[in-house]
């Protein structure tokens, strides 16, 4: 299938014989006096992955996932039925399940379903989906990556690389009679290296991607950079000493360290947690929760970004939401249910992992706007501290606000200078408090390379983060060296 001829509505109509009249009947049968909202979500996903180890590509896999979910919402209650066998009968059955949450039995008539709408943005206008690129081309790229990483340093002993490609077609029919669809590409290249010196064995990982064509990886020789960067990190870690333990001043480098924002404030500002008043940020809109230097936004409209979407998974156009403005808490991230119950505007953050999942408020691309400091000056300002430039994953307990994120490449700062590399360590802080101690914000905002995945309630969705270089006056660093 080619991008030009394909529309989501035509795709599902032709493939499964789902006409808009039947959608109207199913929605109508489900809605009633006591049902406030509802939708039908169709999904068809092709995923392909190939991986390289021992210098050759021996593993290739492909999966096709299709299904539809029907949702009914009554007040704060959600009923959801889904099936991977897309037929009118199964949709009707799913609608019955969904409807079980409503107390009344009165049904409305059929919903008048309109013509399919165009999405408000066109953030990933690809001609050829990454899943359509011949396997041979992808295999050749991974083989080149293997060579590049190995030639970086003779101490690189192993290289693993994997390339994941996706094409996802979705169609959403809402209780308002709106039908809107999207076709989403997704591409992700990961490179890991092992460096060995005697008995010392270390690892480095890098990668990138987004909602782009395969050629994105070739442009600006990105794949070369990913391969070298993975190798470089592994080599750096060969010299790493034990990380310090205790409360230290920390400088976070630009880009991926933005995971700090994702964990420290992003999750705590999701509408569901705030409606239920279970977040450490509940009821704090308008309060100063960060240094005046700090402005944080969530933006689902950045072209091609991994966390970007033309529409969210409830059919709402994505947008840009200011979460914190000059240190003041401004807004929450919303889906339809929570926005309605809180009486707040939609923000286009209703996302779901797949047709088998109920939408929730989720982040898209979350980042801090740049400040005015020179990154060099920020490092120079620290007497004794940590300079952390690469991170693995993070996690947060939104109720007490405590969050962690784990550095995978970090250095000591001694007398204003970056000195020795230290081993990975987990940093732990308190969300509503950590950003109040941001004392410098760099002019070098960078977004991550496009590899992030966020998990919440068992649902994974692709996201992005970004950060300029910042200085945090005190955060607990979980190393072993006292």
């Amino acid at each position, binding site marked *: 299938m080619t991008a030009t001829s394909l529309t989501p509505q035509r795709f599902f109509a032709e493939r499964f014989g789902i006409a808009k009249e039947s959608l109207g009947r199913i929605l109508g049968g489900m809605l009633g006096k006591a049902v406030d909202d509802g939708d039908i979500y169709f999904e068809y996903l092709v995923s392909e992955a190939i991986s390289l180890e021992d210098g*050759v590509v021996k593993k290739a896999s*492909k999966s096709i996932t299709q299904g539809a979910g029907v949702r009914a919402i009554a007040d704060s209650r959600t009923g959801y039925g889904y099936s991977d066998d897309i037929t009118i009968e199964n949709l009707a059955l799913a609608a019955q399940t969904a409807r079980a949450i409503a107390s009344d039995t009165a049904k409305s008539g059929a919903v008048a379903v309109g013509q399919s709408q165009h999405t408000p943005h066109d953030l990933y206008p690809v001609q050829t989906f990454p899943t359509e690129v011949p396997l041979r081309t992808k295999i050749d790229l991974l083989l080149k990556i293997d060579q590049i990483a190995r030639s970086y340093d003779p101490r690189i002993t192993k290289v693993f690389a994997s390339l994941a490609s996706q094409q996802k077609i979705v169609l959403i029919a809402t209780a308002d009679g709106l039908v809107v669809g999207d076709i989403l590409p997704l591409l992700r290249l990961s490179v890991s290296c092992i460096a060995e010196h005697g008995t010392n064995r270390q690892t480095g990982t890098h990668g990138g991607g987004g909602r782009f064509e395969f050629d994105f990886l070739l442009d600006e020789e990105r794949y070369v950079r990913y391969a070298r960067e993975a190798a470089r990190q592994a080599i750096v870690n060969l010299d790493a000493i034990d990380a310090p*333990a205790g409360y230290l001043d920390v400088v976070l480098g630009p880009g991926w360290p933005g995971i700090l924002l994702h964990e420290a404030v992003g999750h705590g500002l999701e509408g569901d947690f705030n409606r239920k008043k279970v977040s450490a940020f509940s009821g704090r809109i308008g309060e100063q929760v960060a240094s005046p230097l700090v402005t944080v936004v969530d933006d689902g409209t950045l072209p091609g970004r991994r966390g970007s979407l033309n529409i969210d998974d409830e059919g709402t156009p994505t947008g840009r939401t200011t979460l914190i403005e000059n240190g003041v808490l401004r807004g929450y991230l919303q889906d339809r249910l929570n926005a309605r119950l809180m009486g707040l505007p939609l923000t286009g953050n209703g996302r779901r992992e797949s047709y088998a999942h109920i939408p929730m408020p989720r982040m898209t691309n979350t980042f801090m706007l740049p400040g005015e400091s020179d990154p060099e000056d920020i490092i120079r300002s620290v007497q004794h501290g940590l300079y952390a430039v690469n991170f693995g994953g993070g996690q947060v307990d939104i109720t007490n606000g405590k969050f962690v994120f784990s550095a995978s490449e970090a250095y000591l700062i001694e007398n204003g200078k970056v000195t020795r590399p230290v081993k*990975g360590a987990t940093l732990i802080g308190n969300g509503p408090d950590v950003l109040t101690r941001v004392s410098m914000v760099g002019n070098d905002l960078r977004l991550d390379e496009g590899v992030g995945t966020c998990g919440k309630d068992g649902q994974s969705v692709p996201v992005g983060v970004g950060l300029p270089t910042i200085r945090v006056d005190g955060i607990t660093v*979980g190393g072993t060296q006292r």
Partner: protein
Amino acid sequence: MSIERDMARDLLAKVRQRGATEADLLIVETDSSTAQVRLQEIEALKSAQERRLHLRVLFGKRSAATSTSDFSLRALDRLIDETCAMAQATAPDEYVGLPEAEAMLTAVPDLDLYDEAAPDLSIEEKIALIKRAEGAALAYDSRLTNSEGAGFDTHVSQILYANTHGFAGTYRTSSFSLVVSPIAGDGTGMQRDAWYSVSRKFRQLEPPESIGVKAAQRALRRLGARKVPTQEAPVIFDPDMAASLIRTLAGAVAGTSIYRGTSFLVNRLGDHVAADTVTVIDDGTIPAGLGSRPFDGEGVATRRTMVLEHGVLRSYLLDTYCARRLAMTSTGNAARDAAGISVGTTNLYLVPGTYTPEEIIGSVKSGLYVTELIGFGVNLVTGDYSRGAVGLWIENGTLTYPVEEITIAGNLNDMLRQIEMIGNDLAFRGRTAAPTLKIARMTIAGN
């Protein structure tokens, strides 16, 4: 699953007609339902039927894996074509292939994984059950002011595996779980915690009121948590956190990490890698076990594997591919998902010791009792371990006050050797289980 058996046979025959030398497939059919209640009101109901086919084909030493939830004839034919084309595009790998024909079971044992006696609960009955559990939590103390909700899940699955050796086996499983996640507040802060019960048999679930009360007690004891100064101290892992440590260990003994050289336990078979009292077993044959299965994702019979015996590393966990690469024998630990075959645990546990949890806590003058760990700060290549921790501070052998916003760090090599006491309180509440354990010394970072 007689229809699927016929379908499996036809698919394998078609793959052979396309020139494939070997092939196998797994079909998983699941019926699931979820009900959630929050503050005694229904929050969500969800139910579904799903079916997925996983196919692997081999052309000599070249292979590819695919999966689909589209069972239409047209889609399956296309899948076969694509899988065959992909397999022929990959590089040959001398270790790839089906398990030996001799490794196939002649009869599939009944491991009692399906609850024949499970009541067919109506939605109202499920909701009533969840309300009892959450209600018990909320009624426990006036400081239980809010809730993240409570839920009841059921899963019933049928699994069919078939391969070109002529083996075809099926089994059924069921599981039921009830969880409560209340929030305690005291005006100065909020704390969430949870308790759950999960079982293959509905009637073996913990009573709902007991789950609710435990969840409430766990949330309450966290109120007023503070940081502690950075120091080295003994650390006691409660049973759930001890299980998380054993899960981490499982990653380091997975055959994939071993042949790739991405584990700190590479080339350590026969070495004393842990304290003498540490024995860890993976056993896929425990009747009604949550990790039990008669055969693994490539048809190999599951078994009982001694991973660590009195501190000595005895075995890695292997699927057929890893076993061949390492010149060993599969331990029946092949897991299978849309990405293909990988190594997974079955029922993995740390064999209990002789101490009561009270004796272990009583042995510590000043140290940490860990009840929750967050984050992903474990590097299996080096063994470096650094995670966010929540727990209770021990003074003079007594749990005194709650602590949070601290980390515990060490290296797994040292941590395993410094396991000083193991409790007698082993209870399976999942696929991985461990009793309370004490590590002599770790670095705690705080103020």
